[in-house]
């Protein structure tokens, strides 16, 4: 077995049980919560007969152990319960919303990786005023809460200037097709993606600057300079290549933050992803959906971490062989 495959398998073994843990944690929380867990698993609905039917279906009248087994097997079959308020299965509701969220997250991620790594490297290599400005900006960038940043961007660009839509993903009332549809989505995507990307650019810049700076103090940089190769090659080939390892790791850690960021940003722009769904469900006390979003969100983050971790092993030749 090649070391890389071995490495990937090892990581799979590490990550998959986490999904199980998330489900167990959810179950325990529901059980530990004060009051009748039925209301959390079913939602605050008035219909007595529906509640009774659900209690039987979820085995809530049976011992804890049985409930646990039923819960786990339900979740693994993709059955997260039924949203009485929306008359739809929770899983269906969430799965429909995932693509929109992913579109937002991936766009922001792509832009910020591109911009953040370049800006961060330049800040680290240049030092001086440019660095001070850029790194101060990046601290401010990661500090501003994205939901507020989104609100301000919305007020300025949509309300005051009126050059972008107030929200949504497509223009209501038009049945665009093909390219037109694509452009319309892009038009709606601009502000939320910008909001999310600003935070993430700041984050990536900060991490990149830090680790390029660190890399530039390493001894092998002296060796590279002693060879007489151009400084740009020293920075990009020698320092950045090494600095990318922590950058990738932190990007992995940050997927959770980014997903949460997307959820909050969606709320501002009424972007039809998991975030808006979560916001509405909290207001309506539609707990099955809230729990479902927690489980699905965790799974997405776990998978993202798995991918990043494997990537990490590919970038750094030392990791694989450990």
């Amino acid at each position, binding site marked *: 077995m090649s070391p890389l495959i071995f490495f990937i398998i090892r990581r799979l073994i590490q990550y998959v049980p986490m999904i199980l843990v998330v489900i167990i944690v959810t179950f325990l929380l529901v059980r530990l919560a004060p009051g009748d867990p039925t209301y959390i698993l079913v939602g605050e609905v008035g219909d007595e007969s529906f509640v009774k039917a659900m209690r039987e279906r979820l085995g809530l009248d049976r011992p804890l152990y049985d409930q646990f087994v039923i819960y786990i097997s339900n979740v693994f079959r993709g059955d997260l319960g039924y949203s009485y308020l929306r008359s739809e299965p929770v899983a269906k509701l969430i799965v429909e919303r995932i693509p929109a969220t992913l579109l937002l997250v991936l766009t922001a991620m792509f832009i910020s990786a591109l911009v953040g790594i370049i800006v961060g490297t330049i800040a680290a290599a240049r030092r001086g005023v440019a660095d001070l400005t850029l790194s*101060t900006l990046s601290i*401010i960038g990661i500090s*501003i809460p994205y939901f507020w940043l989104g*609100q301000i961007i919305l007020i300025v660009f949509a309300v005051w200037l009126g050059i972008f839509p107030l929200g949504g993903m497509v223009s209501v009332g038009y049945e665009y097709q093909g390219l037109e549809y694509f452009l319309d989505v892009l038009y709606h995507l601009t502000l939320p993606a910008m909001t999310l990307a600003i935070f993430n650019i700041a984050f990536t810049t900060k991490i990149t600057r830090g680790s390029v700076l660190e890399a530039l103090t390493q001894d092998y940089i002296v060796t590279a300079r002693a060879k007489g190769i151009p400084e740009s090659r020293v920075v990009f080939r020698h320092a950045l290549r090494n600095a990318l390892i922590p950058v990738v790791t932190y990007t992995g850690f940050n997927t959770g933050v980014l997903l949460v960021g997307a959820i*909050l940003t969606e709320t501002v722009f009424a972007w039809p992803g998991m975030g808006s769904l979560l916001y509405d469900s909290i207001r309506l006390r539609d*707990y099955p959906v809230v729990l479902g979003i*927690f489980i699905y969100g965790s799974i997405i*983050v*776990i998978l993202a971490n798995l991918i990043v971790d494997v990537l990490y092993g590919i970038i750094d030749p030392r990791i694989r062989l450990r």
Partner: protein
Amino acid sequence: MNNQGAAYTYHLKNVGLQLLYKSSKVFKVNPRFTAGFIIVLIVIILALVAPFITWYPPLKTLVGKPFTPPVALHPFGVDDLGRDIYTNVLYGIRTSLIVGVSAVTISLAIGILIGVIAGYYGGLLEDALMRITDMALIIPQFLLALVIVAIFGQNFQNIIIAIGIVSWPGIARMMRAEFLSIKERPFVEAAKAVGLSDVKIIFEEILPNAIPAIIPYAVLQVNTAILVEAGLGFLGIADPNVPSLGLMLNTAQQYLVRAWFMAFFPGLVLSIIVIGLNLLGDGLIEHLNPRLRKR
């Protein structure tokens, strides 16, 4: 160090001015730390004197005409229910700081305990604890806190506890890393060699050397806690009886087109708090990293 200099610092230590002397050096070296320190200081003072510089009770409705834009009597405007935004923002700072500090106290207690046990004893216990920590680190902490508050009830206490118990893993991990590296340093072995007991080695030799590395991260953790609270508030998960910057932004969301000030001021103040803490924490990290400082 030359003798005169040594004698001088020695003198300072004796008169208890050591801390001042050291921090004066920090300020000179790191402008970012200084800026952060000043911002945080101002924020703390504002939180403390809030009752004396506001002229309405917090959360009281109809003290002004709803949706009044900023005027002298209502510097930040009036919200949809006629509450004075300026008053609620100042009390909101209090809430943010209380949440930040108490939640971090909880997470420090859990994190240090787990980190110390894992770092010092090692073996299977460490493996198990660290596996749990890694998982807890990956699961989106915000969503977990949200679920906890949502199903346990939206009151102030629950929010603090929820934020506290979801944010320990970072501290635990750092603490363990510090312990592992300090444990390997020869002075710990030397302490063992002269016959110090485990408990004494942990508390007298290792912990005092590990704590300084944790401090800047604790500062940044306060920040995270404040942001999580605000985020929860923004989604509507908050205690309605406590002024909260996040909850104000939640209300503002419905009136963005009509009342920009409802979103602008609470968010601005929230951002300033977080910027201050970030500058402070970052400056501390940079100051403590000798390799970066040298350049």
